[in-house]
């Protein structure tokens, strides 16, 4: 295209142009879908087409051909000053360098627009600028990107979009001094239950209702996102005062915990909420979200159905817990665990009839750590399964060296019953490796095991029994359903909880419990054993109560494996000479 045809009325040979040709060209340029203008190297506008008026929203009396470039560009009501500067700078640049310039300008100050601009030097010292309006395309692209960042089930923003919005809110806080945001993470309690019992479609319907309720509680500027599953998050921006934020969190718990009608089903769930507010030291998205997560963890550990505001101490606690967790994982590999054995004495014959294996952790820095401290953590992180297997194998190996009439009692965690096949395999392996008959092994389980999935657990207990393994009910009397559970499985032994052995003001009541358990055990063919016996008075009470076997400091503390042989030799032979 030879644009110099447009303005000059003479051709390169000085002959007058035919006006008709110019007219045709003009109308062709006016019919183009891109806005276009030309200017000379003095930055003076020479020509513009009709489309440019539309693109730049120029009024009819606005500056046009003949005016200087700056006045011309500034007369567009939609170009903000930054955009004007960008265009002018590019034109200037093109004049100086005589090179092609491409640029894209966008703004949302005076209405949203995206323009793609091309400035091209022509052979005759003039320049051609074309402007393509990309607004519709870019807006559609942006919408498509946003849609891709939305959860298809609820239409809520997903994690990625949520992050974008939180980062933007933090930026506004940093650069413009807008009040910082608060972030909440929201977890539904018992949602899995709904999915499992009513099916995923009902679960999906419930999630949609939950997302509507959440949205209903937000202000225009706040955002609810779904992170997946039953996990939601809220961006409260700008955050009001702390009290209002806490109030909103409690309200979320309240409203989400109200009943739902889904597909004709009445559904009740709960919710837990963790809240983090800026200004936290060096707030970033990561810190804000992690703090909210820690607060959520706190809310859940306080019994769910509640909200919790992040406190720095949660960070410290979490760090300590992580440290413990790492140490615990290492401990198994580094052989920091050992077993101690506490004798169990038959009161009638006064002989040692067995030992209970008790786990010890020798922490390299913190010394001996009580099982009460690390077993719950091991259960929580699933380490209890390999740890329990290690205990089984070590206990059986140790016992295989003892006289064959002495049994070994091993505690089994309820978690180990999560995979009953694995538990049974571990028992079989431990027995085989120690070359020991199952009848010498006694597994101590707590009542809570039977509360899990009773059928599956009972099946496992029967399979263990078929291997000759004996089963004892541990900590008996502490649960609420104790008595009925005794009928569910023919336990070999009942271990009376130590709380009934301890001296208390109303020993008479305690004695009655011991007597009742011993009598009940007797009638069901189960032996009763009392643990935690520390004084001769306690022993007398236990004996009177009809309990047959005892264990406790009165006889011996738990001892290392090296001392077991000697103890058996001394105690059981003394009895022989006594007789």
């Amino acid at each position, binding site marked *: 295209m030879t644009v110099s045809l447009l303005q000059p009325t003479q051709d390169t040979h000085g002959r007058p142009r035919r006006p008709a040709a110019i007219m045709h060209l003009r109308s062709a340029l006016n019919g183009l879908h891109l806005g276009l203008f030309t200017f000379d190297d003095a930055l003076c506008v020479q020509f513009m087409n009709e489309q440019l008026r539309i693109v730049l929203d120029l009024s009819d009396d606005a500056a046009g051909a003949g005016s200087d470039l700056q006045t011309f560009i500034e007369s567009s009501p939609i170009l903000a000053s930054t955009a004007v500067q960008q265009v002018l700078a590019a034109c200037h640049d093109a004049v100086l360098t005589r090179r092609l310039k491409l640029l894209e300008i966008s703004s949302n100050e005076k209405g949203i627009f995206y323009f793609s601009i091309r400035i091209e030097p022509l052979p005759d010292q003039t320049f051609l600028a074309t402007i393509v309006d990309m607004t519709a395309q870019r807006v559609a692209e942006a919408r498509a990107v946003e849609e891709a960042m939305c959860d298809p089930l609820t239409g809520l923003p997903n994690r990625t979009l949520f992050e974008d919005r939180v980062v933007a809110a933090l930026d506004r806080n940093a650069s413009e001094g807008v009040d910082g945001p608060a972030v909440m993470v929201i977890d539904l309690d018992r949602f899995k239950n709904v999915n499992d019992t009513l099916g995923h479609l009902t679960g999906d319907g419930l999630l949609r209702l939950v997302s509507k309720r959440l949205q*209903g509680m937000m202000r225009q500027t706040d955002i609810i996102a779904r992170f997946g599953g039953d996990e939601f998050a809220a961006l409260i921006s700008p955050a009001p005062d702390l009290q209002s934020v806490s109030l909103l969190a409690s309200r979320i718990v309240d409203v989400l915990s109200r009943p739902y*009608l889904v597909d*004709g089903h009445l559904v009740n769930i709960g919710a837990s909420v963790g809240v983090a507010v800026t200004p936290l030291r060096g707030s970033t998205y990561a810190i804000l979200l992690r703090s909210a997560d820690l607060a959520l963890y706190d809310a859940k550990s306080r019994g769910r159905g509640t909200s919790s505001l992040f406190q720095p101490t949660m960070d410290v606690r979490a760090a300590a817990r992580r440290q413990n967790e790492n140490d615990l994982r290492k401990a198994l590999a580094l052989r920091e665990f050992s077993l101690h054995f506490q004798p169990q004495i038959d009161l009638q014959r006064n002989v040692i009839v067995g030992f209970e294996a008790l786990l010890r952790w020798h922490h390299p820095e913190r010394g001996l750590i009580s099982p009460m401290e690390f077993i719950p953590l091991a259960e929580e992180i699933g380490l209890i399964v390999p740890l329990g297997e290690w205990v089984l194998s070590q206990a059986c190996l140790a016992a295989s060296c003892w006289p064959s009439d002495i049994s070994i009692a091993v505690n089994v965690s309820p978690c180990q019953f999560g995979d009953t096949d694995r538990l049974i395999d571990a028992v079989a392996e431990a027995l085989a490796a120690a070359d020991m008959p199952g009848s010498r092994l006694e597994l101590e389980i707590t009542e809570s095991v039977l509360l899990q999935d009773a059928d599956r657990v009972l099946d496992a207990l029967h399979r263990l029994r078929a291997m000759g393994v004996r089963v004892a009910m541990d900590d008996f009397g502490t649960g609420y359903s104790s008595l009925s559970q005794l009928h569910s499985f023919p336990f070999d032994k009942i271990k009376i909880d130590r709380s009934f052995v301890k001296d208390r003001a109303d020993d008479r009541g305690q004695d009655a419990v011991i007597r009742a358990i011993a009598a009940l055990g007797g009638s069901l063919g189960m032996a009763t054993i009392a643990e935690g016996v520390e004084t001769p008075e306690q022993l007398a009470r236990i004996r009177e109560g009809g309990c047959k076997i005892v264990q406790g400091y009165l006889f011996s503390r738990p001892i290392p494996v090296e001392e077991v042989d000697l103890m058996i030799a001394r105690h059981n032979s003394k009895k022989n000479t006594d007789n």
Partner: protein
Amino acid sequence: MSALYQVLYCSRNRMSGGSKLVSDNIETILAISRQNNARDQVPGGLIFSDGCFAQVLEGPMDAVVAAFERIQCDERHSEVIVLRSGPIQARSFADWSMAFTGSSDTTLSSQLPISAVSEDGDAVLALLKSVVVRETEWLRRRVN
């Protein structure tokens, strides 16, 4: 038309700040409910005392659920308990209305402007009334 569905629930009144404010609030609820429920074809009735609410909603399932969800998000009450929910054969209420029961000894039925159109409707009202009366008495005893 989709199948008819019915929900009965009761809840605690959370409105505070003088009886004038409360009665204004109740007026607002009544007005909006009349309007919304007529539009959505969800008639029913609300019985309330100073301490609690009991409500019946019936209509096409989607409409009932939509109304129920709206009501669930309302801050003016809490501790919502669904007493009954499920499909019904026929409507028991022609219109939407509301009754107030201030105390347990006034016979509710005499001042009850709610019009049931069937025996089922009467039974529902009797149930709601008994819940409100019992709850109100319980709340009073707890305060005293």
